[in-house]
Each structure stands twice: as structure tokens, then as C-alpha cells.
């Protein structure tokens, strides 16, 4: 087989056709740049379609007291003050305009009585803030952006007779490597999934919008696309990753049947009276109330049951502890052998409420279980367990321009693949608005960057190397089966770098990942180049591996528990650690971890918070500075 | 017409791989519609047994009766057509009723599938080589359904009048049957897609026309049952007619409740 490469020239190449990627492409095209959109799956199928709840933006349509400052506060609180404050600020300020813009593209959000966009409540948001369309907000968003791109293509068609004149979508195309000219991005190299042909995009600016990394976990709400490609591409191009230890796990994902493992079960099941039981039938949560919460939570089942009808005179049932506590408890029960056969615990509403009430109060859950699992939740308990949901960490970027930091120019990142915005924990609904705000900024600044540089060249030597790497698995034989390797990786990450982390396990994980690395380098795939999923997976594996290493390394380093990172051996939050970001970079083949101080919040933003709250997060030294702030 | 011979498409030799009884629904439709049309044709050209003098029952197949043959009391609009055999006695209404049902969106689906096999069932190949749908003569005339609907609404008024007229003589099983038929006919007529469109479907802003919006909502609810109503009315029409024919022919006598 001779190696042939198709070449394309663009100004801006956007990798990823989710919310962030499409928004970036619209912006780059509007700035007059020739833009390519590249996506691993078909156009309009990216992960963003799965988002349900809504997009957070302080429009104040439902409660007029809401504004960007409140949103900013909520975001910082949610991230336990580890967020990059500037990103959180920009996000809170710009989200409403980005949502309104979607309406001009044809989006139809649910409405308030006076005809404005309706907003709903969501955990961690002080006011109703999530613009939504039923439970399919992500679908609405991606479809709207997709249709906007089509509208732009129609505009181009009117002018030039060619739909693809200025913006073209390359669907089912995977980028495996970024090309560099010195320290500048020169293009992106990859293959068409359909035909297996190789393709090179030459462009001075590349926007990464490839989403997350959840597929490294056994139980996840993420799809096959989430193999951390963008993270790995950035690393290999010389950029840095930040906060990789922070992964969001949702305590109740479905674990049975296998086909729907990981799909979310909403929190309201517990809020409405659902109880968690282990395989011995015990309501085990009573044994897991940490001391700090003792006062607010019930100690007996009787008291807990009374709370549902009389919350003023009784304490809350322990099922309603914060997400990480519940997840931790479930995890322990399963590890100690009291789990269900499928490796979860039981979540039961059937014995708590009459069937009719369940159907009325939890219609979507009733249908979800009925349709997906053939389980009647009015008669049977559900099986649930923690599921990997979102990665807070990602490419370290400049907040205003979204340009990747580290040693590379011309690389931009937006969406889940970028890091810093959400700190140690993401609030529900903040992701969709994040995509729009920073997607737009990425497109805008990538376009501006193009004007400032001469066209780079792709060095032939690097290209040859990329070709060899891409075709490697097909040409080797006798290596491991990629599916087995992926399963092994998932086991390592799920068991050892999961929701509750311990030093010994993390070290063990690093060792195992190291061993896997040699086998991944030698993986082989049978079959030809046309649409060969085995080959595709073999190529994704090495990305998953390097990103997993970053996560494990950072998790081992951070000796505290905060947001999406829980260390059993360091169960408390440590103000000293709040001032530190962990940065991963690639040094040859090795992942290198460095510490970097967190940027200091501007005084006027700091003044938005109360001292009582800040005292939980800040060191004494910082608190003294806080006190010295002039009264606002 | 397997896809095996289509360049580019997956070469699958089986015409369909469906394993369920997909042929059952079109078969039932075929038999049902076929039987009804036969019955109706026979009845229309019988030219008799349509009027029960004693209780003023008039079958909908002969209402209003407009030929010279007609009984005076059944001819609301006069007797102005010649009594040739080929002329149905309800020559003014029957063509429109036929047109209404022929162009009805539901019946179209039913007979395109069951009679024309285009397609017989989903994912089962069409029985025809060429296909242009409703874009050219004669099928483009399906678009007149709207006007057939207006006519049908008027005819429903006449049927209601018939039922009311019979009511004047007291109450028997025949009256009940007539009323049931009229109610079913109205439900069917109002549930028509054209009616739904006229009621409010053509509006862009429901919020500016609250009354029409409510009417549209009502029609929409009926419209969901349009298929069922289409079959129910076939049933009630045939039943009403058969009952009146039996009374008129003296096969048995009406079950009277009052009088």
C-alpha cells in the first residue's frame, strides 16, 4: 500500500464539531477566514447532543435579581475557588449574549409567560438560570449551530456557487497529530474514518474542541468519542494541561443492564423519597454521615422518613448528603462486597410510594427505566453506582484569547477540552454556556492570529512520522487486541484512580499504566483501512493512556480532597493547596508535573464574597489581605 | 425489487427481511374496504327500501333523494333528476361523499397501501416501477380535499336534519341508530385534517387568536382518532342503512321505546 495524502489548505482548522467547535467555526468564518470543521462522528452527533438540563446564563428572565456577579459567585463556589477567576468572570458576563445569539440562529427555548426565555433551577445556582428546552437542551444547541453553519454555507453558495467555499465540514475524520513548524502550529494530520485515507490540513491556527476523556473509565456517561484526543494532541504539540485530577462523578448512574451502564439517574429520585440499600437490605447511608454534617442529618430511619412530610421539625435523610459523600459511600459498600451483582447498590422508590405517585412525580425516570432497561421502578429497585461524567481539567489556556499556554503558538482550545474555568467542580449547566462563550472567543482569536503570522510549513519528516504512527497498528501483527487493552485501561482507571483515591492505589495505577504503555505502542489491528473500528480504537488508545497518566500523576500529587478529587488519606480541603494548580507537560515520552500558583483574583471580584464564606477557603495570609480590602 | 441490483447499495437479495406479519394490516384493509364498497354499490343501485314511512327513517345513502323515483317525504330538495337506473337517488350528495372519502388523508394512506401496494407496508418494496406520487394528473387532484370537506360538512347537516325529522315520530331503536351515525359522522368530519388546518393550523401565532387556538386544540384531539373514526363511520353508515333497509323491506319491525 503506497502512502498517499490528501492535502487541504485552510486558515483556521477547528477540531471538534460539538458546541464549542461549531461556535468557534461560525466566528472564524464570520471573520472572513477559510474554515474547516473536523469531527470524528457525523455532523451534529457530537457529545453535546446528550446534554439535558440546560445552559446557564444570568439573563434574569425569571428572577430579575440575577446578574453576572451572582453567577460568577456561584461558579467560583461550585469550583471550590480553584477556578481561573478571569474565565469564570468572562463566562458569567458573556453567557447571556451568547444564548440570545442562538435565538437569532433559530433556537426555540422554552418560554416564560411574557415571551422571554424560560430559566430553570439547578443545583448550585442561586436563581433559576438554565435556559432549556425540555430535557434536550444540548440537542437544541447543536442543531441550532449546525443549521447556522448551513445558513452560512448557503450565503457562500449565493455568492460563489460553492457551498464549501469558506466553511467546510469534514465529518468522520479523526485527527491523530498536530503538525508544527518550529513552535508554531502548521496543521493537523489525520484520516477519514470512512475510507481510511490519510489527510493533511495545512493551517496557521488550530482550535481544539474535542471534549472530554470519560471513555478511560468503565462506567461513564460519555461516548466512544471521549478518548481525550484533544488533551493528548495539545500535550504532544507542547502545550500544557491543568487540573487533570478533577473528574466529576455522578453518584447515581445506572449500572444495570449493561447496555445502559453509566446513564444518569436524576438526583430528584432521592429527593422524592428514594432510599439506597445494599445487597443485605440495609439503608447503609446512616453509617456514612461525616461529623461535620451530623447535626443536619437524621440518625434513625423513622426520623428520616418523617422529613419528607415535615422537613421543618426533622433532619434530612442521609441519602441527601452531597454528591461526593454519597458516591463515596456507594463505592465503599461495593468494595466491601455488599454490592449488587452488577456492582452497584439498590435505589428503591417502589416500596416508598404508591405506583401512581411515582409515575406522576418521576415520569422521565419511569420511562427511562421502562424503555432502556425494562425495569418497572414502581415494582423493582433500580441498580445504581457512580458514573464518570465530566473532566474539569484540560488544556491550560489564556482566559481572554483561549490560546494554549506552554511552548506552542497558534493553538486554541475551548469547551470541555480546556481547563481552568470550572475549578475543581463544574456546576450543572455551566458547560453548555462555557462552550458558547469560549467557543466564540477561540474562533475570534484564532482568526486574528492568522492575520499576524506568515503561513507555516509542514515539515516532511514530521509528516512521515505521523503517517507511520497512524498506519502502525495495521502493519504490525501479533500485538494486543485494542478492545482488550481498552478494557484493561478502564479497569485500572476505574478501580485505582476512581472516585475515592488512595496513595498506594495511585502509585499502583501509575505502574500499571506504564506497563500498558509498552503494549499500547505495540497494539495491532486486523482488517483493512475502510471504516475499521478496531484500528480507530488502537489509535485512540495512546491518547487515553497519556491523559490517564496525567490524571493519575496529578491525583497522586494533590494531597487534599476538593471537588472532583477525593483522597481517602487526605479527606479535608487544604487552603494551601487552593493556591496551587498542577500542570502536566510532556517531556519526550514522559509526563512531567509542575506546580504553578493560581492567579490572584482582582480585588473588586474578591469583594463580591463574604468573609465568613471565604474563611473556609483562604489561608490566614490571604484572609488578612481580604480584610485589608477597601470597603466596596 | 431487491437492493441487490442497485449499484452502491447494500447487496441484500431478500425483498424484505421483516419477520412479523406485515401483510396482515393491508389485507384487513383490503377486505374491509372491498366489502364495504361492494355493499354500498349494491345498495345505491337497488333504488328501494330506503324509507320507513311509519317512523320517517331515511337512510343516509339516499339523502336527500332527488330523482323522480323518490318518495315525496324523502326529497328535501325536490325531485329534479330523471329516474334512470344509472342515476343514484342521492346524486347530489353521493359524489361529494365519495370524493371526500377518496381524498381523505387517511383513506389515501389505506388504499395506497392495501390496493396500490405503494408501499404495502413499511420497508416492504413498492409494487411499481415508476413513482411520481401526487405530483401529476390524476393524483394531483387529491389536493381538492379541502373542498370536499366543505361539501361533507353541509351533507352532515342534512343527515342531522334527517335524524331530527325521524325524531318527531317518537323514539325507537332506529332513532338511536340514526343519531349514533350522525354523531360519528360529525366526529369524523370535524377530525378531518383540512378542518384542523382551517380551524387554526394555518395560523402562525396561536397566541393572537385564542378562540381559534382552542378550536384547533379540540380538532387536534379528534384528529388523532381520525383513522378509528373513518372505520367507525363506515360501520355506522352500513349498519344504519342495513337496519332501515330491513325495516323498509319488512324483515322485522322497529324496536320502539316511546310510541
Amino acid at each position, binding site marked *: 500500500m503506497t502512502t498517499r495524502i*490528501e*492535502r487541504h*489548505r485552510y486558515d483556521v482548522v477547528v477540531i471538534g464539531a460539538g458546541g464549542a467547535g461549531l461556535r468557534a467555526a461560525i466566528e472564524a468564518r464570520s471573520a472572513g477566514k477559510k474554515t474547516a470543521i473536523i469531527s470524528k462522528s*457525523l455532523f451534529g*452527533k457530537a457529545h453535546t*447532543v*446528550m446534554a439535558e438540563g440546560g445552559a446557564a446564563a444570568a439573563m434574569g428572565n425569571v428572577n430579575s435579581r440575577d446578574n453576572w456577579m451572582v453567577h460568577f459567585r456561584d461558579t467560583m463556589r461550585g469550583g471550590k475557588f480553584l477556578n481561573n477567576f478571569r474565565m469564570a468572570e468572562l463566562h458569567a458576563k458573556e453567557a447571556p*449574549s451568547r444564548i*440570545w*445569539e442562538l435565538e*437569532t440562529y*433559530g433556537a*426555540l427555548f*422554552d418560554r416564560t409567560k411574557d415571551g422571554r426565555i*424560560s430559566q430553570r433551577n439547578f443545583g448550585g445556582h442561586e436563581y433559576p438560570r438554565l435556559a432549556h*428546552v*425540555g430535557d*434536550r437542551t444540548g440537542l*437544541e444547541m447543536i442543531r441550532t449551530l449546525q443549521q447556522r453553519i448551513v445558513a452560512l454555507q448557503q450565503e457562500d*453558495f449565493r455568492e*460563489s456557487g460553492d457551498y464549501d467555499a469558506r466553511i467546510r465540514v469534514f465529518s468522520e475524520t479523526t485527527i491523530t497529530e498536530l503538525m508544527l513548524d518550529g513552535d508554531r502550529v502548521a496543521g493537523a494530520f489525520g484520516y*477519514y474514518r*470512512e*475510507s481510511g*485515507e490519510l489527510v493533511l490540513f495545512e493551517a496557521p491556527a488550530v482550535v481544539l474542541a474535542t471534549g472530554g476523556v470519560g471513555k478511560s473509565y468503565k462506567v461513564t456517561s460519555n461516548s*466512544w*468519542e471521549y478518548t481525550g484526543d484533544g488533551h493528548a494532541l495539545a500535550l504532544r504539540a507542547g502545550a500544557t494541561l491543568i487540573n487533570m485530577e478533577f473528574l466529576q462523578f455522578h453518584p447515581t448512574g445506572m449500572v444495570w*443492564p*449493561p*447496555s*445502559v451502564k453509566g*446513564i444518569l439517574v436524576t438526583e430528584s429520585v432521592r429527593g422524592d423519597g428514594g432510599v439506597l440499600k445494599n445487597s443485605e437490605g440495609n439503608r447503609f447511608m446512616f453509617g456514612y454521615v461525616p461529623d461535620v454534617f451530623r447535626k443536619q442529618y437524621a440518625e434513625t430511619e423513622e426520623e428520616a422518613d418523617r422529613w419528607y412530610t415535615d422537613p421543618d421539625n426533622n433532619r434530612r435523610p442521609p441519602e441527601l448528603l452531597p454528591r461526593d459523600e454519597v458516591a463515596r459511600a456507594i463505592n465503599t459498600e461495593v468494595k466491601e462486597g455488599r454490592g449488587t451483582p452488577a456492582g452497584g447498590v439498590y435505589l428503591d422508590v417502589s416500596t416508598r410510594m404508591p405506583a401512581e405517585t411515582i409515575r406522576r412525580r418521576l415520569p422521565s425516570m419511569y420511562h427511562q427505566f421502562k*424503555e*432502556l432497561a425494562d425495569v418497572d421502578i414502581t415494582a423493582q429497585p433500580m441498580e445504581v453506582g457512580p458514573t464518570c461524567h465530566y473532566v474539569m481539567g484540560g488544556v491550560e489556556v489564556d482566559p481572554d484569547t483561549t490560546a494554549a499556554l506552554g511552548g506552542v503558538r497558534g493553538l486554541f482550545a475551548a469547551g470541555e477540552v480546556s481547563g481552568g474555568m470550572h475549578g475543581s467542580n463544574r456546576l450543572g449547566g455551566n458547560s453548555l454556556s462555557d462552550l458558547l462563550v469560549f467557543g466564540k472567543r477561540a474562533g475570534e482569536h484564532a482568526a486574528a492570529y492568522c492575520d499576524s503570522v506568515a503561513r507555516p510549513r509542514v515539515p*516532511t519528516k514530521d509528516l512521515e512520522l505521523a503517517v507511520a504512527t497512524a498506519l502502525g497498528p495495521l502493519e504490525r501483527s501479533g500485538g494486543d487486541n485494542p*478492545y482488550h487493552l481498552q478494557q484493561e485501561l478502564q479497569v485500572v482507571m476505574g478501580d485505582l484512580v476512581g472516585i475515592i483515591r488512595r496513595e498506594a492505589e495511585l502509585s499502583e495505577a501509575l505502574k500499571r499504566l506504564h506497563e500498558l504503555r509498552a503494549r499500547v505502542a505495540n497494539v495491532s489491528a486486523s482488517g483493512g483501512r475502510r*471504516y475499521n*473500528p*478496531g*484500528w480507530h480504537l488502537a489509535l485512540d488508545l495512546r491518547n487515553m493512556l497519556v491523559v490517564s497518566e496525567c490524571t493519575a500523576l496529578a491525583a497522586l500529587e494533590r494531597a487534599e480532597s476538593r471537588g472532583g478529587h477525593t483522597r481517602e488519606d487526605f479527606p479535608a480541603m487544604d487552603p494551601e493547596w487552593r493556591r496551587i494548580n498542577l500542570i502536566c507537560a510532556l517531556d519526550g515520552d514522559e509526563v512531567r508535573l509542575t506546580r504553578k500558583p493560581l492567579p490572584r483574583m482582582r480585588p473588586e471580584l474578591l469583594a463580591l464574597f463574604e468573609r465568613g464564606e471565604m474563611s473556609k477557603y483562604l489561608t490566614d495570609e490571604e484572609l488578612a489581605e481580604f480584610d485589608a480590602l477597601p470597603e466596596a | *425489487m431487491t437492493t441487490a441490483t442497485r449499484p452502491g*447499495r447494500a447487496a441484500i437479495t*431478500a425483498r*424484505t*427481511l421483516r419477520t412479523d406479519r406485515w401483510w396482515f394490516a393491508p389485507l384487513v384493509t383490503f377486505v374491509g374496504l372491498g366489502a364495504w364498497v361492494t355493499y354500498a354499490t349494491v345498495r345505491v343501485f337497488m333504488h328501494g327500501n330506503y324509507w320507513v314511512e311509519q317512523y320517517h327513517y331515511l337512510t343516509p345513502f339516499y339523502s336527500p333523494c332527488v330523482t323522480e323515483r323518490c318518495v315525496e317525504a324523502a326529497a328535501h330538495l325536490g325531485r329534479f333528476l330523471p329516474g334512470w337506473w344509472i342515476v343514484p337517488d342521492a346524486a347530489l350528495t353521493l359524489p361529494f361523499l365519495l370524493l371526500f372519502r377518496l381524498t381523505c*388523508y387517511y383513506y*389515501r*394512506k389505506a388504499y395506497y397501501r392495501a390496493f396500490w401496494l405503494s408501499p404495502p407496508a*413499511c420497508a416492504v418494496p413498492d409494487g*411499481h416501477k*415508476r*413513482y411520481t406520487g*401526487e*405530483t401529476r394528473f390524476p393524483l394531483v387532484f387529491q*389536493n381538492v380535499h*379541502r373542498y370536499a370537506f366543505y361539501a361533507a360538512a353541509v351533507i352532515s347537516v342534512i343527515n342531522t336534519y334527517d335524524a331530527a325529522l325521524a325524531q318527531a315520530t317518537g323514539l325507537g331503536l332506529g332513532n338511536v341508530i340514526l343519531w349514533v351515525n350522525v354523531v360519528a359522522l360529525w366526529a369524523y368530519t370535524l377530525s378531518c385534517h383540512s378542518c384542523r*388546518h382551517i380551524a387554526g*393550523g*394555518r395560523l*402562525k401565532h396561536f397566541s393572537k387568536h385564542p378562540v381559534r387556538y382552542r378550536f384547533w386544540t379540540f380538532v387536534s384531539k379528534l384528529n388523532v382518532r381520525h383513522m378509528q373514526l373513518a372505520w367507525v363511520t363506515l360501520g355506522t353508515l352500513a349498519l344504519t342503512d342495513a337496519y332501515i333497509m330491513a325495516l323498509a323491506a319488512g324483515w322485522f319491525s322497529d324496536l320502539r321505546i316511546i310510541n
Partner: protein
Amino acid sequence: MGTKRNFRVWRGDAGGGELQDFQVEVNEGEVVLDIIHRLQATQTPDLACRWNCKAGKCGSCSMEINGMPRLGCMTRMSTFTADETVTITPLRTFPVIRDLVTDVSFNYRKARETPAFTPPADLAPGEYRMQQVDVERSQEFRKCIECYLCQNTCHVIRDHEENKPPFSGPRFFIRAAELDMHPLDTLEDRKEYAQASMGLGMCNITKCCTEVCPEHIKITDNAIIPMKERVVDRRYDPLVWLGRKIFRRDQLPSPGPDPLLGVLPPREPAEGEPDWQRRHHGAQGPAVGDDGHLPITELTFENQGAGSPFGDDVTLPLPAEDLNYHHPRDDPRR
């Protein structure tokens, strides 16, 4: 705990293929897509199949299961009996790429040809006001996950390849209906366009699209029929028609570009006159092959020298028939 069950999966590509028999373990609670994944992991690592969300939200995993178009991730194995052989084939209406993956670009082409949302010129972002009752109809259609099962099952193109150019299919009828019912869309001509250019008239409302739609969108009742009725309003309403005749409206020519897509209406050139409106090749784009991809160059190929001022993809001389030059010698009126 699993039991072995029989499957027949179509494997092959555009060059041909066949149904192959497999025995695969099936566990309780699984869906057809799980079986495909198990096949990939254990027996056929290169079995091609699309999927993403596994929750019926993305519309990637469209296939035909026992002859019916369905989503693999939403078809539970418990709907089949234990001794039943389950047959899995790719969508039949679109060209096959490999195994269960088909080339659905037809749909993306049609999407491009459907006129986009046209916002009101006088409203700034943030000023849009719409009532819930007014957006609800369009919202139903926006539930569409673009699985293209409706397009695949529609007999107009499934059984009649030649109808593909003039027919957009149910997915795009609901798109047209969605925009026509959108309270703030300003384009008036959608109905006319749907009838004239999308092939709305070819649909014979046999409802298969509604039958297979996994989102349970009432495609026929709520989109196609209302659109047909809207067309009737404009085209077949005798009063409107009479009005047109009397006021001679339709004798007014409509010069200028088609308001929707900007294509000039074809006009026959007079005898001997050059055909200025002939379709020439347009901008000389890169010469793409049949597959829509650029011709392939050798790995070592580098552009030599400075870029051409006419663009790197233009080859000179330009084809003569593309030049809008008419030599006076050829003019019969001379």
C-alpha cells in the same frame, strides 16, 4: 449467565456482501448494539457500525433489524424470542460504505438545500419574544435526532432511486414545517418551495416515516399534511387562482435570483444569441473525485515556488467554455 443466540449480520461493501451467521452470547437486559459491540470485541474486530450515545439521543446507530429500520441502541434483545435469529442489515436506501455503515451524505445535501431560518431584521438578540403556545409546534420537530430512519424507510426514494434528486424526504419536510410555523421566521415562500423544490407532492402520506421515528414525531399528521394544506391555500384554492387570473399576477415575470437560493431561473437564449445563463463550472474548485475528496498527491509533494495569484487550485488556461466571452464574429446580427 448469558445464552448463545443466533444472529445474521450483513457484511460487505459497495462491491458486494452477504449475510453472515454468528453465535453471540446475550445477557439479560442487553440491546442489539451491545451484541454488535460484543461481536467487535470477540469475533470481528473490524465490523463497522456507527454509534455514539447509546441512549437514543444522537441518532447514529440506525440499522435495519429483522427488516425494520430501527436504532440499535433502543432495540432490546428481550423483544425477540430466545430461538429467533436476529437479522441485522445496513440501511438499504443509502449507498453502503462497509458492513452496517452507510453513506448518509444525501441527507446533508438536502439539508443544505433547505432554506435556513431567516430572522426578522428589526430585532436585536435578546429582544425576541415568543409565546410558548406559538413555539410548541416547531419544538416537536426540533426533537429530531437526525437518525434518518424516516428517510430510509420512505418508499419514494427507497424503492425509486431516480426520485432522489427531486425529493428531500420527511426529515426535511418537518424542517420546512418547523420554520413555516416558527413565530419569527420571515421567509414567506416556504410552502411554495416545499412543493416546487422539495418534492412535497411526491409523498403519498403512507405514514411509514411516522411509524419508524424513534422520537415519535408525528411527521405526517403534524408536518406533512399541514404543509400540504398550506400549499393548497396558495396553489389550489380556486379563489386565489381566480384572483391571479383576473389580476394577471402570474404573468408578471419574476426576474432576478430565486429569493430562496439565489439561482437564476433558466431562460432559453434567442436564436444565435449566446447563452449567458448557461451553467458553467463556476469557480474552479479543486478537482474533487467521485468520492468528493481531493485527488491524492504523493507524500513528498510540496508546493513549488510562490503561490499563484489566481489561487493554488486554478489551472491555466481556464476551459474556454467557462469564459463569458462572445466573439463578435459569431454574432448573426453583425
